[in-house]
């Protein structure tokens, strides 16, 4: 059952995700979440003392304010606020801070389809940033049904308009536990098999709805993994030995990436690598020490291979030809953490990844 989507995605493929936390200065927690072009900012204030009039004083109270990109606040926004409030109430532990109010403010930056799921994900990330006690995260996804019965995940605005029906589904994220038997169980089934929120528009048959739920749940595994990785990266300290930055400048006509890193002893080490062609047409890689500016090592060769050396020794560690197709003088760039390496080929470029990097690419 293949369907051609305009942006070339498969029916079950999500748009690229991006999340950053602690981006706003004043709120106690903030996050921005984007799926493709849809972007939402969430800010959390609290917990603050006191609850609203009709709320239970034995539990924590949540207040959601939805701010659309433009226009006045109307019924649609009120409905989104109510859905978000109910979803947040079911994922947070309400008994830890009784008689307090936590405010969640959602600001829509750009709407390109699947807005409510994006907002729920952003609110979840902001709540984590603020340290609000939660039972688990909520991962939200939009599934829609086309006229010919095909099921599509994470539609953009144009696709949404053409669909007969769509459903916003929110699931609890997958839990990691130390003991496998220890995963939280509610009524005999693991918590991941539950569903937190479901909002449907349009007409669809019961079977189609269950298919939506199944497909949506399968996709939440990758969303959960993305959440987890995002939080782990910011929790761990900046690692020693990571490549700190790239500065490019020309050195005698060559292009030079400059790598500065801090090794495990806390010393700053810097190397300057020049790669390119000299006037005579030899390709070479020169390593220049920081202080003296003298050439330390010279590596020549133009055989279309990528070579790896250990920093401290002159011996070649390994080579790879990356399954062929490399130019004679391929351009190389590492990503910030050194997990991915992009290399230019004859018709484009390839990305090489180590084990951490290959998880990034999924």
């Amino acid at each position: 059952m293949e369907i051609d989507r305009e942006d070339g995605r498969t029916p079950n493929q999500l748009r690229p995700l991006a999340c950053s936390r602690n981006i706003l200065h004043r709120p106690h927690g903030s996050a921005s979440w984007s799926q493709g072009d849809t972007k939402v900012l969430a800010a959390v204030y609290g917990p603050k003392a006191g609850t609203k009039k009709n709320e239970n004083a034995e539990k924590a109270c949540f207040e959601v304010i939805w701010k659309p990109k433009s226009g006045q606040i109307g019924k649609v926004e009120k409905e989104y606020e109510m859905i978000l409030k109910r979803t947040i109430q079911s994922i947070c532990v309400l008994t830890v801070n009784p008689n307090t109010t936590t405010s969640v403010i959602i600001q829509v930056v750009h709407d390109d389809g699947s807005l409510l799921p994006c907002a729920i994900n952003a609110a979840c990330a902001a709540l984590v940033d603020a340290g609000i006690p939660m039972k688990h995260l909520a991962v939200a996804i939009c599934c829609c049904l086309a006229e010919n019965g095909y099921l599509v995940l994470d539609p953009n605005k144009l696709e949404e308009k053409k669909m007969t029906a769509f459903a916003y589904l929110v699931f609890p994220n997958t839990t990691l536990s130390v003991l496998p038997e220890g995963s939280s169980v509610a009524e005999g089934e693991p918590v991941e098999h539950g569903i937190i929120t479901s909002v449907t528009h349009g007409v669809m048959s019961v079977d189609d709805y269950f298919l939506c739920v199944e497909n949506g749940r399968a996709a939440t595994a990758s969303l959960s993994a993305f959440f987890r990785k995002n939080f782990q990266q910011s929790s761990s300290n900046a690692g020693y030995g990571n490549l700190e930055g790239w500065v490019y400048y020309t050195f005698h006509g060559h292009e030079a990436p400059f790598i500065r890193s801090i090794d495990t002893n806390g010393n700053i080490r810097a190397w300057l690598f020049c790669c390119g062609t000299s006037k005579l047409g030899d390709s070479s890689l020169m390593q220049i020490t920081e202080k003296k500016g003298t050439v330390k090592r010279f590596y020549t060769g133009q055989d279309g291979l990528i070579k790896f050396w250990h920093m401290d020794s002159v011996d070649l560690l390994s080579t790879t030809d990356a399954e062929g197709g490399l130019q004679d003088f391929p351009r190389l760039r590492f990503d910030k953490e050194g997990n991915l390496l992009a290399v230019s080929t004859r018709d484009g470029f390839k990305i090489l990844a180590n084990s951490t990097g290959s998880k990034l690419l999924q």
Partner: protein
Amino acid sequence: MTNQTIKLGSGLRQDNEVISVMRAGKLRYSKPNKYWVESSHKRYVPRPEDHVLGIVVDCKGENYWIDIKGPQLALLPVLAFEGANRRNYPKFEVSTLLYTRVVKTNTGMNPELSCVDESGKAAGFGPLKDGFMFETSTGLSRMLLSSPTCPVLEALGKKLSFETAFGLNGRCWVHAAAPRIVIIVANALMNSETLSGTQQRIMVEKLLEKISD
């Protein structure tokens, strides 16, 4: 890990048979049996025996209402000062900065503070006069209070003389003879959150170099 009594600290909770995590952070363990999740946020969760910087919000009858950046306002009994009795007790205005310790926290009740230690002595608690107070995250204040002394404080202390008070609730107070020293110290502390020990020393050196020109 069976048949052990363990103590759960902040960020962990017990749900019948299962222990689950409530916040994102690092799981820490201290012998013999304490586990907790360490994370850095802009708000504070009150715990007994923490030293915090509070701001007076109101005075009603027997208690001062103090804001400690937590979910509830805290209560400071008017008599919880050294040598205070019914006829003679300190009177503070609204927005006075106080260095206090948290005595007890029960869910649902406002936390209680005190400006005396267990033996009844003042021990440095009380109002902080002059100086400059700024807010940071709880992680940074923990780092500044850690022992051995944090590298940024050591490096600053070698060249400048100043007085500081740090509250575990993310409030820091700096006082020095000249305002420029207060500004230098405050900026250095605020910038040192994400830096490692060596990076902190380098940052302080560069800062002091610029100032001494």
